[in-house]
């Protein structure tokens, strides 16, 4: 500061030590205040950005959790269906498309031309066919009768209703004609906005109104499980061996350097390795969570090892001496005393590694986890995709409804991360307690 003029220094000489200290103290306090403010600002800014990000995602995701349905009067006429009896096998193969079409046209008798009819039919989800099929299979007594069945709107109509609804006016991808028909549906009060639980229970689809996150979520779960089951024991065992058992020599130095290097390798390289070695040489199936998990293990392992080693190093040597001095073997000391004390740090490292793996896409693209997969994987060798890849795929789709799905999938991914972190935090607390 500007206390270097001669008058000041003269003054300073006349002051007693206590006064000098008091002077400097004021300066120190100011400095401290400034630093505290800067820190607070930094934290505040970070927090604000997170809040903005999350609220933006939540706002964008909201439409994905609802879906508009319409109640149709479906005539299950035998001649339309092309069946002769209510035999189940026959009902399964019946022509529901025709039933749906004609029932719909029946509700709008003044729609005539082929183009208009097609345009009307396109307002209903392609899945409606399966909805009415399921309805008839569940209640075969309705054969030959008229029934009211709720079916989904097409995603264009759904988006229009959610975002751009203006009575009778055209919207993006909705013609004026369609908007007017829609108005008739609305006037008859046969349109319903429902909680879209399918989003959590079904796999991916080309049709946005049918696409769900379950397949990717299951794929992520399986992949993370494989990653955790491989990388945690391997990483902890390697760290314990290197810290507690291995002689300190040139070999262990080389290993140490290599582990540190491994942590810095771009993840896509691991994907190439997975493709070349795990799939091509060992012949494991493509797109499988098992392979994804192995590849992500390669990526996570260095993080876990480095964090575990640091944490093991931080265990006071007096604890080792205490155990060894009582006649505990090296093994008993390492696993009975050092490991539990190092566990909080190890868990922190593990969760950092797992969080990285959770958001990883590049190496998984290499091993084919980017394919369009409709079925929810049932095991670690089934073809699957993962949440970040699903987000990428949806974000890349032209349909407007996928925009909301993308944000919703991001929310699911963030929730997954949150749950993972919470579990780690609870475990950490448990280990810190004793």
């Amino acid at each position, binding site marked *: 500061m500007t206390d270097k003029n001669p008058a000041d220094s003269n003054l300073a000489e006349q002051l007693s030590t206590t006064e000098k200290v008091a002077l400097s103290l004021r300066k120190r306090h100011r400095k401290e205040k400034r630093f505290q403010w800067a820190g607070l600002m930094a934290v505040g800014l970070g927090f604000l950005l997170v809040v903005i990000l999350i609220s933006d995602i939540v706002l964008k995701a909201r439409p994905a959790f609802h879906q508009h349905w319409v109640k149709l009067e479906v005539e299950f006429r035998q001649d339309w269906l092309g069946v002769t009896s209510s035999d189940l096998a026959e009902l399964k193969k019946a022509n529901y498309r025709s039933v749906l079409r004609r029932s719909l046209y029946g509700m709008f008798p003044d729609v005539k031309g082929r183009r208009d009819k097609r345009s009307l039919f396109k307002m209903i989800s392609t899945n409606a066919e399966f909805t009415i099929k399921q309805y008839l299979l569940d209640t075969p007594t309705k054969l030959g009768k008229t029934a009211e069945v709720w079916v989904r709107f097409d995603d264009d109509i759904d988006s229009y209703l959610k975002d751009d609804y203006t009575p009778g006016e055209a919207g993006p991808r909705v013609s004026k004609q369609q908007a007017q028909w829609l108005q008739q549906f609305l006037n008859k009060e046969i349109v319903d906005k429902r909680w879209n639980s399918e989003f959590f229970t079904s796999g991916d689809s080309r049709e946005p109104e049918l696409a769900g996150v379950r397949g990717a979520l299951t794929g992520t779960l399986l992949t993370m499980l494989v990653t955790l089951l491989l990388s945690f024991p391997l990483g902890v065992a390697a760290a314990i061996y290197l810290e507690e058992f291995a002689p300190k020599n040139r070999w262990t130095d080389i290993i140490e350097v290599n582990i540190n290097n491994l942590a810095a390798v771009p993840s896509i390289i691991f994907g190439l390795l997975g493709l070349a070695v795990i799939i091509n040489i060992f012949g494991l199936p493509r797109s499988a969570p098992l392979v994804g998990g192995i590849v992500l293990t390669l990526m996570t392992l260095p993080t876990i090892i480095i964090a575990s080693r640091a944490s093991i190093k931080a265990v006071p040597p*007096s*604890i080792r*001496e*205490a155990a*060894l001095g009582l006649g505990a*073997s090296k093994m008993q000391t390492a696993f009975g005393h050092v490991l539990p*004390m190092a566990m909080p740090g190890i868990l922190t490292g593990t969760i950092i590694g797992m969080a990285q793996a959770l958001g990883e896409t590049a190496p998984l693209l290499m091993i084919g986890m980017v394919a369009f997969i409709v079925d929810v994987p049932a095991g670690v060798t089934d073809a699957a995709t993962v949440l970040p890849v699903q987000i990428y795929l949806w974000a890349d789709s032209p349909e407007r409804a996928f925009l909301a799905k993308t944000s919703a999938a991001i929310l699911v991914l963030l929730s997954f991360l949150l749950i993972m972190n919470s579990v780690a935090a609870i475990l950490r607390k448990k280990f810190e307690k004793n």
Partner: protein
Amino acid sequence: MIDLSSSESLVSDDIDLSKTVGEIYADDAKMSMRNVNVFYDEKQAIDNVSLDLARNQVTALIGPSGCGKSTFLRCLNRMNDTIPICRVEGDLRLEDEDIYAKKLDPVLLRARVGMVFQKPNPFPKSIYDNVAYGPKIHGLATNKAELDEIVVSSLQRAGLFNEVKDRLDAPGTGLSGGQQQRLCIARTIAVSPEVILMDEPASALDPIATAVIEELIDELREKYTIAIVTHSMQQAARVSQTTAYFHMGKLVEMGKTEQIFTNPVHELTENYITGRFG
């Protein structure tokens, strides 16, 4: 840090360090060490030391800091094995058994020769588990009742039982420093060792806690052979029967404690106990 290669100004050239003066042999030796040399890499920390630990007696190892007391003590239960650069030479015996023999398991040795460290180092577990740990890993108790019995009697002998009897489940790390050190002693006793090594066990404690520990050491002598490193000469005088004075890795003088403190033979010993350096 004392560098053994450089000359030490306090040692005049005519002082003979090559031979230990006094009595290094005991009539009834529990442990005997002969010609012990210890190296950390190239650096020699113990230079040709021979001495006996008399059965059921307290032997004090004293000397200026860095003279190798801890190093020597840690040879007696092979704790130095855990330091990769440390090398021990010489003949060290526990009841005529070579403790550095190839076939001898250091884990077994440490069950027979227990150790109490400078800084109290209870495990971050309950008081009960701290004491029960040794007996458990060595299989000294066949059932819970026996284990309870060992824990209680060990705590009693360490003079801690009355203070902790209604909180055996409380963490050992929550005790005061003096109590923690007595817990560590109880933990050591619980394994029923024959010899107990103590490395400045009271240096981190206040005078009252120190007095309690000293009293305890005197009682423990009945059952155990004890070697204690201390930097406090008063403490050595109070608790030990035999005293060994180390200087720069060498054993300078050893003898009856009374004699060492009232009538030291060696000039260095006299300098040290009269407080001229240390």
